[in-house]
């Protein structure tokens, strides 16, 4: 076919384009609804007076998603009645400790694997890879036996220490340090800096992009884990956010308003941290996970 397209053809191609646009916009709308509405609904419900929760869940109206007389009473309630403040403080403490220790310990190991030649290096790297793939949730029950045998079950240390060493974090740091030219390190060494000083003053300050990924990863892992805290820190003194939430729904009479409020409040820190460090984090996981170098170079979120 050549020459000027006929009217009918032109109309058809416009119709096809229009249909495509409508389909795409429809899909976008559907996606936004499916992924955002549940989250939105929880926040809206957390701000609703407890007495009117059921009224708006069913039947569905626009009021389901907009609280008509917003109140903070549920959020105050979880703090005053459920001791949620303690759970938040505990979670913040153990997550902060795990992140701080984790960044130092794993970056040191990653540095050794990237920049040192020593006997058994590939064996150690293999061990790290195995630790990276042996998932935490598969060993919770024997880990409980080990920690109890070591005598620190039901302490904060029981929550923190097992989460510090992380094979994936070591791997990400190693990948990152391999890109750093050894000359910089050599120069510091020639100037007489100790290895400790070189690492602390030269290497660590350059690690921020890798560290950002590891911070988000370790924080989300620690803040969001349920299974391990459930068996390792059962006393209410050490209760963390996730177990506090789980306890409410497994209680005989679940209090919806408090559930909404604690779900909303409990998700705030990891979501905020993620939004803050989103770019680094996504680059890190996508690049480190699929090992496609292009991901590391370009990132996803251009």
């Amino acid at each position, binding site marked *: 076919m050549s020459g000027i397209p006929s009217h009918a053809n032109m109309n058809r191609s416009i119709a096809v384009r229009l249909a495509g646009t409508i389909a795409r916009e429809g*899909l976008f709308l559907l*996606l936004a609804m499916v*992924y*955002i509405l*549940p989250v939105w*609904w929880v926040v809206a419900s957390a701000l609703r007076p407890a007495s009117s929760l059921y009224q708006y869940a*069913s039947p*569905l109206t626009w009021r389901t998603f907009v609280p008509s007389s917003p109140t903070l009473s549920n959020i105050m309630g979880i703090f005053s009645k459920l001791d949620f403040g303690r759970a938040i403080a505990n979670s913040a403490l153990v997550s902060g400790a795990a992140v701080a220790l984790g960044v*130092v*310990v*794993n970056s040191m*190991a990653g540095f*050794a*694997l990237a920049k*040192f*030649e020593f*006997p058994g290096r590939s064996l150690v790297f293999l*061990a790290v*890879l*195995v630790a990276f*793939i*042996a*998932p935490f*949730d*598969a*060993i919770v*029950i*024997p*880990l409980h036996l080990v920690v*109890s*045998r*070591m005598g620190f079950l039901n302490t904060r240390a029981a929550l923190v220490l097992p989460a510090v*060493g992380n*094979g994936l974090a070591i791997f990400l740091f190693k990948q990152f340090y391999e890109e750093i030219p050894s000359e910089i*390190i050599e120069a510091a060494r020639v100037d007489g800096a100790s*290895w400790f000083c070189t690492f602390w003053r030269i290497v660590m300050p350059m690690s921020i992009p890798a560290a950002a990924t590891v911070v988000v990863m370790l924080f989300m892992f620690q803040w*969001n884990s*349920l*299974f391990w805290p*459930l*068996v390792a820190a059962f006393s209410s003194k050490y209760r963390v956010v*996730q177990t506090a*939430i*789980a306890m409410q*729904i*497994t209680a005989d009479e679940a209090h*919806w308003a408090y*559930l*909404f409020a604690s779900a909303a409040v409990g998700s705030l820190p*990891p979501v905020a941290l*993620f939004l803050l460090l*989103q770019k680094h984090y996504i680059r890190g996981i996508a690049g480190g*996970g*699929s*090992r496609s*170098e*292009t*991901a590391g170079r*370009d990132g*996803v979120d251009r």
Partner: protein
Amino acid sequence: MFREPRAAIVFLAPALILLGLFRVLPAAVSVGESLMGLATPPTAASEAIGASINAGVGAAAGGPTRAFVGFSNYRHLFTSDPVFWGSARVTLAYSALASPVTVAVALGLAFLLKGSDRRRSLLRTACFLPSAISMSVVAVVWGLMLDPYYGLVNSLLRAIGLPPQPFLNSPRQALACLIAIAVWRNSGYWMMFFLAGMQGIPREAYEAAALDGASKSKQAWHITIPLLARTVSFVLVSNTAFNFLTFAPVFILTKGGPIRSTNVLVYESYKSAFIGLDMGRATAISSLVLAAVLLLSLAELRLTRPKHEY
């Protein structure tokens, strides 16, 4: 590369000690403990033996005396434990369905949301957001949404004239609900891997195809999908391993029910350890799960060992 083994050891030591104590040792303990069982009959003599063995690692159960029983925990699981088999079937069904569906949804999202306009980038964040929320919160939220009486989903069904569903209260629907919840939470996470993979495909490949007159859908099918095959298989395998370890939604929403229709292996192992107080059975199940996941992950390592070539 620096040749100073002593410095290297100092840098490595903290991580290696922690990994050894909290990853490798528990895995070994799991296997060791799974070879232990109740010493029967509990006579005075066997109690003395049990006590001396209990001085080993397995004292935590604190229950009756325990002794080395070889593979009898495993034998028992395989030959006369229908609950275990049911649980294994549920776990397999869960991973076998959840993983491909998650990958398909994630791939679809990646195709739809690649690009740099503001709307797409906002939607990417929206889709990723559930992965930042803990599985327990996600489970709680969906539990409320799927409530048979007051839940949002049934309100929606009623609004468009469909009959309300029992969802998590039905042995036929509960597992499917858990799968849907997992897909909702994880698809955005894996979408990011596909987006990263797509960025690695050289633009020239598409330009050449476009010159040859290939349509967008043809380009997706003949260029993007084949060049993404490696990433797809990586995500599929690691997602399967991930799904094998599902615990939080089962613990929070269904307790393995109704009628054990969602009784996954990790939950069964938890019940065995902390409700049934049978550490032998619990660790035998843990060891089997660990072995299965390690096998899957070895496959994963093989898939990712060579650098990607586009």
